[in-house]
């Protein structure tokens, strides 16, 4: 026991040189010198341990090791690695190039297929990078937080991106950790520059804005934001108002209200914003300008929100301490406001992940990247499909064409190549081919596929080759593709015995079950992608025609600044014989609404609320399902509300009695209301968003902000022009703001057709790949049997016989592929449509049937091309050929 202990202690006092330099030394230094040199090194190391610290000794050891690596002491490395392999690889390379040249069709199928797949992989990469890059250009992204709160409005906790007005300033005063703070209040104003007037969104913000967010300026200084009289423009706005000239020092007038205006001096223009950002600005001015723009804007009012409050802390961990002490503000907030709007907690969202969380946030200023993440999933699946298609093509062609190379393999093996070397040969050939495909794929991706995708979606991925991750990704693709497509053929081909090969008794490739399996699988994939193309196209067509639930066609609207403008414009338009009805409202479908909390016995329920007049329903063609609309006397139905069917459906599940909604009493903002009518559901938002519970209230006349009118059928455009003209006469200083109701979702229709376009493009590539693969396979099969067919023809076989012979082994595959593929496509696409769209077309079998029919046409065309070739060939040539 004792001796063991002393031994141990002795061992522990003994220091050892660092491990890895010793290993390097042992690997590199010549064997005959190693013992001496390692001994010397260790002796010096022990001396150094005694003289200096262990660390320094180790450092010296490592450095000495590096200096030992000189030619006279190091092993002849090339000798270990067998340099003569260079010649072997050189030969492999030559053989692969020759192979490529000899079979241009096969090479084309392989390289084109792989490069198309790689091109799509590059699109995936570009798009994923674009998405992941969102907001990452902000230098302080990890220490800037958006203050948000959670509130329970209708049974579920919901996050809001707005904050009570005084919170920002109080946080800054109360917490030493809060270094900077800025609020953002967005407003719509009329911007006037010389004779131009436009409606624009402006942002009031604090001077710290540019210190917290990284929006570099093209011209001017960011510090000028402190000046209450200065305004900073985005590049886009600078070009819109001043062209390409430097506008610094120029004046811009903002008309906040009709009579309230202020002139600002341009002191800065931001550089073009990075494409992937979740928020930006058009015009920035100092927050205190709100006092001028809106004299009753109370900075200390807890009951009113500001659009966003951002804070910056010293380090990310500080936010925990702040979040833990937010209870105090919650109490202040909840004491100030009515119970309806009580909040349950304040939460700080870091800027770095804001774009991912914005999807579930309400009333926030930031955009969400959730749909981009959805697209990444789709693109990944498509890339995988394409890769599989291309690799299967390659594998099939490699297996079948290997028959031609049997002799080569036999010779290689008999002069001493092991199975391993043959595998290495095939894999290295594959790397050569994949490398060509990679170059083509990168070009295809960069110059065809990405521009196609960008043009379709009106954005730029800002794809660049100056990106290290991209090259790693490409390398990974190269290796993965080369190995995935090459490993099976390599093992398969290298398996055969030399004797059998040279004797010619190896029956090869023609009856390989794997080839058939792959072909079937390819056809199934093609079937799925074809179905998706057809179904998305059908869906786009359907969505364009899908009823909105109200009559958009004849409705026109215009925004008005106040009641006076409404009265004047309304009076003029009433003279127009084409106008059937006119309506005034505070909100407008698809343009604006507000949310309200409905109090029911023991329950709160959040709804959308539109304040309108009695003519609104007729004007917009909203259909009544039960009850009545508001009566048309002035101030008639102040205590009445009209609800939509969706709300009735939801509430009747929760509360008894709501099956009969008419006459039900509810409380909103402490006022009792009675339900007098139910309207049919309609989409107040586009089809990507679900229908929400909705109530209509009677709007006060002084709150009218929209004028809607219904034109006689066929006169919409004319009436719209008249409306614009009348407006220009009445208010030359305020730009007209309004449109045909048809146009409120202007980009929605193009977005819909984009989906169809995209999937058609993808399906085209997929079907092309599959049919090319099929064609290549049949070509090989047919050329291997030229003699057979020639003899058959000489013996009197007609085209039909030949056709049956050529295609005999494929029919079962086609049928199997379609029988398996069609139901899979149907189920999968049903799922995909449900995943991608809130509302989609009713799914029936027609899409799948059309896709299968198209696929059959493609397959038959491919097959008949082959048959034609065989039946046209001269049997004499076929027999003569040696």
């Amino acid at each position, binding site marked *: 026991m004792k001796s063991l202990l002393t031994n141990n202690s002795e061992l522990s006092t003994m220091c050892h040189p660092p491990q890895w330099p010793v290993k390097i030394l042992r690997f590199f230094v010549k064997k005959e010198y190693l013992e*001496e*040199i*390692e*001994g*010397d090194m260790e*002796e010096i190391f022990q001396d150094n341990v005694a003289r200096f610290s262990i660390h320094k000794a180790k450092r010296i050891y490592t450095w*000495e090791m590096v*200096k030992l*690596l*000189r030619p006279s002491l190091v092993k002849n490395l090339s000798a270990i690695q067998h340099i003569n392999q260079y010649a072997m690889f050189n030969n492999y390379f030559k053989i692969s190039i020759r192979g490529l040249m000899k079979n241009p069709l096969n090479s084309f199928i392989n390289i084109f297929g792989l490069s198309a797949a790689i091109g799509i992989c590059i699109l995936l990469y570009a798009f994923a990078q674009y998405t992941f890059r969102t907001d990452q250009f902000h230098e302080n992204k990890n220490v800037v937080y958006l203050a948000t709160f959670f509130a329970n409005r209708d049974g579920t906790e919901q996050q809001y991106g707005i904050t009570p007005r005084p919170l920002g300033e109080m946080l800054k005063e109360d917490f030493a950790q809060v270094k900077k703070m800025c609020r953002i209040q967005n407003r719509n104003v009329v911007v006037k520059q010389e004779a131009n007037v436009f409606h624009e969104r402006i942002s009031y913000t604090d001077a710290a804005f540019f210190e917290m967010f990284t929006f570099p300026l093209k011209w001017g200084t960011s510090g000028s934001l402190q000046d209450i009289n200065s305004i900073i423009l985005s590049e886009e706005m600078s070009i819109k108002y001043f062209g390409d000239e430097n506008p610094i020092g120029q004046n811009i007038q903002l008309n906040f209200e009709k009579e309230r205006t202020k002139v600002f001096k341009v002191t800065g223009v931001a550089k073009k914003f990075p494409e992937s950002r979740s928020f930006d600005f058009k015009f920035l001015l100092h927050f205190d300008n709100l006092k001028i723009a809106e004299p009753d804007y109370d900075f200390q009012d807890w009951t009113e929100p500001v659009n966003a409050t951002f804070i910056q802390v010293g380090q990310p961990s500080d936010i925990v301490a702040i979040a833990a002490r937010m209870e105090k503000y919650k109490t202040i907030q909840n004491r100030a406001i009515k119970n309806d709007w009580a909040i349950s907690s304040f939460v700080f969202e870091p800027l770095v992940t804001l774009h991912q969380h914005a999807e579930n946030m309400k009333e926030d200023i930031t955009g969400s990247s959730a749909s981009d993440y959805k697209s990444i999933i789709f693109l990944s699946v498509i890339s995988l499909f394409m890769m599989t298609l291309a690799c299967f093509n390659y594998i099939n062609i490699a297996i079948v064409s290997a028959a031609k190379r049997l002799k080569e393999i036999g010779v290689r093996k008999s002069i001493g190549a092991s199975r391993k070397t043959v595998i290495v040969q095939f894999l290295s050939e594959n790397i050569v081919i994949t490398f060509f495909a990679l170059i083509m794929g990168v070009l295809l991706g960069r110059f065809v596929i990405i521009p196609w995708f960008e043009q379709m979606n009106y954005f730029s991925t800002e794809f660049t080759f100056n990106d290290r991750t991209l090259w790693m990704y490409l390398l990974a693709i190269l290796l993965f593709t080369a190995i995935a497509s090459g490993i099976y053929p390599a093992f398969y081909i290298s398996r055969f015995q030399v004797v059998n090969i040279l004797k010619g008794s190896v029956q090869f490739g023609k009856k390989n079950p794997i080839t058939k399996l792959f072909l079937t699988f390819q056809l199934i994939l093609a079937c799925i992608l074809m179905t998706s193309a057809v179904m998305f196209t059908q869906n786009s067509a359907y969505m364009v025609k899908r009823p909105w639930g109200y009559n958009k066609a004849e409705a026109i609207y215009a925004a008005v600044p106040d009641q006076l403008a409404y009265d004047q414009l309304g009076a003029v338009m009433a003279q127009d014989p084409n106008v059937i009805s006119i309506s005034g409202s505070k909100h407008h479908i698809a343009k604006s609404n507000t949310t309200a909390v409905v109090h029911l016995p023991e329950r709160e329920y959040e709804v959308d609320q539109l304040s309108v007049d009695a003519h609104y329903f007729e004007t917009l063609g909203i259909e009544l399902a039960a009850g009545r609309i508001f009566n048309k006397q002035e101030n008639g139905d102040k205590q009445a509300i009209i609800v939509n069917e969706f709300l009735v459906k939801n509430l009747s599940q929760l509360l008894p009695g709501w099956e009969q909604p008419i006459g039900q009493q509810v409380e909103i903002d402490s006022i009792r209301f009675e339900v007098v009518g139910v309207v049919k559901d309609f989409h107040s938002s586009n089809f990507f968003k679900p229908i929400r519970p909705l109530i209509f209230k009677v709007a006060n006349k002084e709150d009218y902000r929209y004028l809607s009118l219904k034109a006689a059928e066929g006169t919409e455009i004319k009436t719209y022009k008249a409306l614009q003209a009348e407006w220009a006469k009445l208010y030359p200083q305020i730009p007209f703001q309004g449109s045909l109701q048809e146009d409120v979702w202007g980009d929605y229709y193009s977005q819909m057709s984009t989906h169809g376009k995209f999937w058609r493009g993808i399906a085209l590539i997929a079907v092309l790949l599959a049919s090319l693969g099929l064609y290549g396979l049949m070509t090989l099969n047919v050329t291997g049997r030229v003699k057979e067919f020639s003899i058959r023809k000489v013996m009197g076989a007609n085209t039909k016989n030949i056709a049956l012979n050529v295609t005999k082994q494929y029919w079962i595959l086609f049928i199997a592929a379609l029988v398996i593929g069609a139901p899979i496509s149907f189920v999968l696409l049903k799922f995909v449509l449900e995943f991608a769209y809130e509302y989609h077309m009713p799914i029936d079998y027609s899409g799948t049937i059309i896709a299968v029919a198209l696929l059959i046409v493609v397959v038959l065309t491919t097959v008949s091309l082959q048959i034609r070739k065989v039946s046209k060939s001269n049997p004499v040539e076929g027999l003569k050929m040696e």
Partner: protein
Amino acid sequence: MKKTKLGEFEELVLLTVAALQQDAYGVEIKRELEERLKDKLSVGSIQSALKRMEEKGFLTSMFGDATKKRGGKRKRIYSTTSHAHKVLAEMKDIRAGLWESMPKLALQFS
């Protein structure tokens, strides 16, 4: 002189080996030279000089004893060959001759 190319550093190492006699192994040679040159030397430079000279036939070597300090590895003791002695003597003569033939004046200036 033709085949006896000996670099300046090599000559120093060779002389050290000759001087150290039985103690002439890597670490000791390094220590001795560092002391005399008042400079740090790397193991690599000494070792490569030794190996080069062994190849050229100036040195022979044999394994010595192993110590615990060396992690149980044996030393390699170097000794000079008669050829080396001859070359060293030749070098010394050539240098001495050159010194002799240097004019007194030049000496004063140096």
